[in-house]
């Protein structure tokens, strides 16, 4: 029994060595590469800003490595590492305005950082003390969504709400608002994601679909989801798609800025495919040696999103040893903070199970809560007796 697979209808899903369609502003060697279309979008970026991005990148990675360590020490049940994807997350995260709204997956710790979410709060879900401990309305950063793809529809609906609020296309930079929906290469196969494309296109909704194509959906390589580049999907739905070097924080900033501005201006959705690589395991329970080659990792290490910014800053004289050391030190302090924060995250009270199922507790639930409370009481009583 053999399967006729024939020739795929179109080209490969991955960019070729020097793909002109891949937007890149900083080479892996830290060289600034001119780009007529996107240079204007980062013309305002000063060395100070780049230092800021560098700091973001390093701190995002440090949050991540610390969380992995906390998982290894049994403080977290699980962690989904962003290792390798810092450039995509910081670049897009720093493109956002205060009023923009973010719908993340479970891996957007770097975006959360850019939004100003207390990093310790990201741990709650993975420690098992809550299902998202931050207030999504405070930093306009929604809860993590684990059901792959579901959040893209929420983002699109939210964007439709923005339209109805008249907060699009007014020209007022503090009023016009965009939404960004994060998702992965694997998620691109879900019906929900494609329905989100349709809704966004038909309604011309102010939403940016930001796909971090890290080339893996757990153990499945990109080819199990698509035979052609993901950014091209957008054209078939009637809006632009663009592929950016996801390990290039500057290019991600530029491309996302452009997409968000289109959205805020009332020009509708954009799909951004940030081409990157998941350097770590899918999550801390995953064992990638079962399905991929170490050589791949080596190849991608050379494209590290942090190293290239460091090289750029060094090369341009935008930063010196002292700066890099200071960032490293800050990273260590952040790690300390995370450790403490994590260990101090309070365990939920048993009867908290019954809180917030509904806005007002229903009588049957109150009954069940009382049942549990009495039951737990009975042990306490027994313990006192014995």
């Amino acid at each position: 029994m053999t399967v006729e697979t024939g020739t795929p209808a179109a080209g490969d899903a991955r960019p070729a060595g020097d793909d002109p369609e891949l937007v890149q502003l900083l080479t892996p060697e830290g060289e600034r590469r001119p780009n007529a279309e996107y240079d204007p979008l980062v013309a305002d970026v000063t060395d100070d800003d780049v230092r800021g991005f560098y700091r973001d990148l390093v701190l995002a990675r440090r949050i991540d490595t610390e969380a992995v360590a906390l998982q290894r020490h049994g403080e977290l049940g699980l962690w989904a590492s962003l290792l390798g994807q810092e450039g995509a997350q910081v670049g897009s995260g720093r493109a956002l305005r205060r009023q923009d709204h973010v719908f993340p997956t479970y891996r957007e710790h770097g975006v959360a950082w850019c939004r100003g979410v207390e990093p310790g709060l990201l741990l709650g879900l993975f420690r098992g003390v809550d299902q998202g401990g931050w207030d999504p309305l405070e930093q306009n950063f929604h809860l993590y969504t684990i059901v792959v793809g579901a959040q893209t529809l929420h983002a699109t609906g939210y964007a439709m709400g923005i339209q109805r609020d008249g907060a699009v296309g007014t020209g007022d930079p503090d009023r016009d608002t965009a939404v960004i929906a994060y998702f992965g290469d694997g998620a691109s196969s879900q019906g929900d994601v494609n329905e989100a494309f349709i809704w966004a296109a038909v309604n011309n909704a102010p939403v940016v679909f930001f796909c971090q194509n890290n080339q893996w959906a757990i153990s499945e390589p990109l080819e199990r989801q698509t035979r052609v580049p993901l950014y091209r999907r957008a054209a078939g739905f009637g809006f632009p798609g663009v592929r950016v070097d996801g390990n290039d924080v500057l290019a991600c900033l530029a491309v996302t800025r452009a997409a968000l501005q289109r959205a805020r201006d009332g020009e509708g959705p954009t799909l951004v495919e940030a081409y990157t690589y998941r350097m770590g395991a899918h999550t801390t329970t995953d064992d990638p040696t079962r399905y991929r080659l170490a050589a791949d990792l080596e190849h991608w290490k050379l494209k590290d999103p942090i190293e290239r910014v460091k090289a750029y800053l060094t090369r341009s004289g935008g930063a010196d040893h002292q700066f890099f050391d200071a960032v490293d030190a800050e990273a260590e302090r952040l790690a300390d903070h995370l450790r403490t924060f994590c260990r101090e995250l309070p365990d939920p009270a048993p009867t908290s199970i019954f809180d917030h199922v509904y806005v007002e507790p229903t009588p049957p639930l109150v009954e069940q809560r009382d049942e549990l409370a009495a039951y737990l009481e009975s042990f306490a009583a027994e313990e006192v007796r014995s």
Partner: protein
Amino acid sequence: MTTMALGKAINAGLRRAMERDAHVLVMGEDVGKLGGVFRVTDGLQKDFGEDRVIDTPLAESGIVGTAVGLALRGYRPVCEIQFDGFIFPATDQIISQVAKMHFRSGGRLRLPVVIRVPFGGGIGAVEHHSESPEAYFVHTPGLKVVAVSNPVDAYWMIQQAIELDDPVLFFEPKRRYWDKAEVDEDGSADLSLAAARVVQAGTDATVVAYGPMVRTCLDAAAAAGDESRSLEVIDLRSLSPLDLPILYESVRKTGRCIVVHEAPRTLGGGAEVAARVTEECFYSLEAPVIRVTGFDTPYPPARVEEEYLPDLDRVLDGVDRALAY
């Protein structure tokens, strides 16, 4: 007082809610110019515009999923699922997202989303147009589930559902859309959304129903009355949560309980009523709770649906069985 059919009463209730709060939206397939295949949203787009009465693309997950986003932005979307059998593509959004958002956000987020579902059989339709999927949602914590049985309730309950900050599955008995009653639009709701109602008092047995079966059971009670059997008929109205005290009180009085629905028997709503009533009224029960329901088969072709669906005679047969114990 206005004489209104049930479908028209929901339309009037929607209109009231939309007038009261500019954040109330109606969305779904064909809800605009067509006014929905049952005309429940008739005229709303004309009066409230295309931004508030939204003809969506044809995908139920998209309808509910974007409603989630709209609700997060402060809107109060009322989604229409065109027919019961087409709610299933939206299951994931309903069960994993809508039902859990308030809980998983630690109470920070609220999702005032109403999902209207014309449900049930008896209209001679083709497959997938006569389903009774309510039990799936009753089994799902975080959702409120109601079913209306008459125009007056329909008028008030749709408004109450929209006002609620919890998500509500709102089941409408499609074969009763044309049932008429007097509705006092200037009055106010006489019951909370979660309350059951004794629609007919009686002493010999308690008949529990909701949605389309309430009228069937009232007819049965009338027929039984002719044979001097006094049936108490309870309209559950809310399936989640259940208004249990009213059930217990009735069964403690009558000692017998018959629960009636169109949905398949196994794990249909009647199973929960039977389990709870037995738990709480064990010593009062003269007979086990009798379930008069659809059978455990896919909904059959229309020409044989009368045999599938509980009707007056099958309800009376259930009453007989309960009384014969």
